[in-house]
């Protein structure tokens, strides 16, 4: 629980610092605070989809259903963080451009990715057989990720955009003061921690859903929800 408390404190500190202590950044003005809740979720979403890609490839290579569950959890959480990116982006656009949506290449790309990964849980829900579901989902996750570099990195640079330059290594990044840089890094760490926490919970739920229960609702291995299996004695392998 220690690191969870640390995460809560860290996220709270980022929120307070973003709104109260960071001076307006050149090019962003009064909407600067959005930066700390818009860019980190975007990075987390792309990382989550990358992990989903790796686990999908592991599944197709080894046929281990645990990889399939991990891929599914990463893809679904990536969707959540992409939704945060799109919503905070629209709020920022309203403050800066006067409208929530204007089909800017970056907005469009993020929305397309949201739609692409929105189909992933739909696909999983449509297939009852676990093996067929795992194979189809893995193929779709790999196919879908092929669009991520194009939509996330090529389109925003290939088409004229009103969106500020990339934060890391871009003009705006150069405009970040020391305080903003610290808060930005803290926000990145906090969102990654939040992601790791959500991933742990979601994966445990996925694993529990596959454990058969008897008529009284007790799980087949006799462990309560959240209870850990005792370590095996030396020389024995876990079932």
């Amino acid at each position, binding site marked *: 629980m220690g690191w969870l408390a640390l995460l809560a404190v860290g996220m709270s500190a980022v929120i307070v610092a973003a709104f109260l202590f960071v001076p307006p950044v050149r090019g962003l003005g009064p909407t600067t605070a959005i930066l700390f809740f818009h860019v980190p979720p975007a990075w987390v979403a792309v990382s989550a989809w990358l992990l989903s890609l790796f686990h999908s490839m592991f599944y*197709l290579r080894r046929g281990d259903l645990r990889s399939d569950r991990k891929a599914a959890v990463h893809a679904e959480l990536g969707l959540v963080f992409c939704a945060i990116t799109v919503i905070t982006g629209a709020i920022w656009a309203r403050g800066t451009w006067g409208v929530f949506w204007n089909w800017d290449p970056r907005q469009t790309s993020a929305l*397309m990715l949201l*739609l*692409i990964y*929105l*189909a992933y849980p*739909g*696909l999983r829900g*449509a*297939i009852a057989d676990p*093996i*067929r579901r795992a*194979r*189809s989902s*893995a*193929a*779709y996750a*790999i*196919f*879908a990720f*092929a*669009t991520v570099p*194009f*939509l996330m990195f090529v*389109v925003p640079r290939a088409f004229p955009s009103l969106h500020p330059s990339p934060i890391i290594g871009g003009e705006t990044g150069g405009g970040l003061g020391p305080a903003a840089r610290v808060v930005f890094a803290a926000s990145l760490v906090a969102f990654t921690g939040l992601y790791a926490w959500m991933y742990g919970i979601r994966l445990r739920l996925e694993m529990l859903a596959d454990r058969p229960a008897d008529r009284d609702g007790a799980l087949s291995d006799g462990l309560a929800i959240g209870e850990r299996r005792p370590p095996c004695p030396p020389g024995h392998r876990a079932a």
Partner: protein
Amino acid sequence: MRIPSCRSRPLEAAAALFIKDLRVEFRSLMSWGLLAASAAGITIATSFAFGGILPDPLTAAALLWIIVLLVAMTGLPQTFVREQEQGTAWTVRLWADPAPVLAAKLGLNFLLLLGLAALVVSLYGLLFNLPLAAPAALAGSVLGGCAALAGSGTLLAAIAAGTGARGLLLPLLAIPLQLPSLAAAVQSTAMAITGEGGATLRAALVLLAAQTAVSGLMSFMLFRYIWDEG
């Protein structure tokens, strides 16, 4: 009767499967006929809604590709569904490797899309008096757009065909992934209608070719995991 395997000759296998699928389509004429009728009906309704006056080229091109895409969503999985319903899928699996099967299905879906696009463009010409400022560019746009849509749509159609909710699932899976291809096809078609373009038109066509190549390559890599599962 012993069916000779074609595993050592993938090109022959792909050609044979393509001809088999084409023959099956033309014997029934039902599914492609219905798709053509749907496309014609929607195009006529569009022309009626616009009072026969061609909207600006970008809107006209967008409508054209949306009609093709929506009708194709019904048609793309048909070739896989038919194999399952007629009980021929396992014979095809035993007879040929997945790559020739995909090549044949890709070819068939490309032909289907091309037919639908040609029909819609022809009806546009009749109903809207579509000016053809650059016919070669329009042909290139239609070919590129159909190839890009077939390239990604065929694998997704194979995935959707294996589920119970294929009618709802394919648009959900395919439309977001096909939006970049759709955007490039709309841009190039609009420029072909106006006769403008040059470098921009070439860039859109190159983008379509690149999307076709990437999605085609990915499809060939992944198809066996979908197809072998049955």
